[in-house]
């Protein structure tokens, strides 16, 4: 009798778990085509229109989640996101992961250094192309992905 009950319970559990996982898989693997997207999603994700149908289910889910949060962002942030969407999408997975790691290390910097980074980037852009090429050719001295701390500014001469 007890063994019958154990068997019945095992079967019921297996069937229930199978049904639950099948339902979950249906949700997790949903991969809508561009024409199936809502007007709002199509408008936000417009830079990805030509690549959308080639994206995997996981990446589509990520972009759709991002589109949902898009209206809550400031207009300049919305503009930056749309401006970089296609370029980001066309990076290799390794490049995206490297950029994410560097972004995380940037977030850990003190606020003043974090805010100064945009200006530093512009200064770097104004370097002669040969110099930038030479810097790029050097091996990374620290762990890849780590945004180094910006050295403190040189002491100014008195009176300046």
């Amino acid at each position, binding site marked *: *009798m007890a*063994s*019958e009950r154990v*068997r019945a319970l*095992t*079967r019921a*559990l*297996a069937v229930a*778990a*199978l049904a*639950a*996982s099948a339902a*979950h*898989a249906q949700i*997790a693997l949903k991969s809508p085509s561009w024409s199936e997207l809502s007007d709002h999603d199509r408008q936000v994700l417009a830079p990805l229109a030509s690549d959308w149908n080639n994206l995997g289910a*996981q990446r589509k*889910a*990520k972009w759709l*989640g*991002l589109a949902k*949060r898009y209206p809550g*962002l400031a207009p300049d*942030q*919305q503009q*930056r*996101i749309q401006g*970089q*969407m296609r*370029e*980001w999408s066309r*990076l290799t997975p390794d490049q*995206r992961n*490297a*950029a*994410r790691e*560097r*972004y*995380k290390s*940037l977030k850990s910097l003190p606020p003043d250094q974090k805010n100064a*980074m*945009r200006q*530093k*980037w512009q*200064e*770097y852009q104004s*370097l002669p192309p040969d110099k*930038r*090429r*030479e*810097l*790029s*050719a*050097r091996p*990374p*001295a*620290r762990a890849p992905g780590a*945004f*180094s701390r*910006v*050295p403190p500014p040189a002491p100014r001469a008195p009176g300046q």
Partner: protein
Amino acid sequence: MNHREAEFARKIARHLDHAAADIRPGTLYRLKQARAAAMANLVPASSATGELAAADGGSVSDGPSYFRSAAVRWLGVALLVAVAGFGYQQWRSMQQVYEFEDLDLHLLASDLPIDAYLDRGFQNWLRNGFER
């Protein structure tokens, strides 16, 4: 059972038959009720064999029903393990989607362009104190 034992059994049966004739109607009724209850609770032969086999730990003579029930049990366990593994994988995958969604949203909305995160020259330049 040898000859003497068989003879002894026959004698007992004769005495019982003789005594049964003298049983009072009330006692007879209760005996009938008890027999009917026992018959109603009788476990089918195949199931009884399986339970006995399972109870004594199993052996070569356990019969096909034991193997069938054990196979079903192991199949159930294997199915549960497979489903749990698959579910965990799906859950991890969804977690990664949420993590990337949050990270990418902030990265793309940040002041720095994507190139700044990927340019090794920029990283080296920052590290070396903005050499010119």
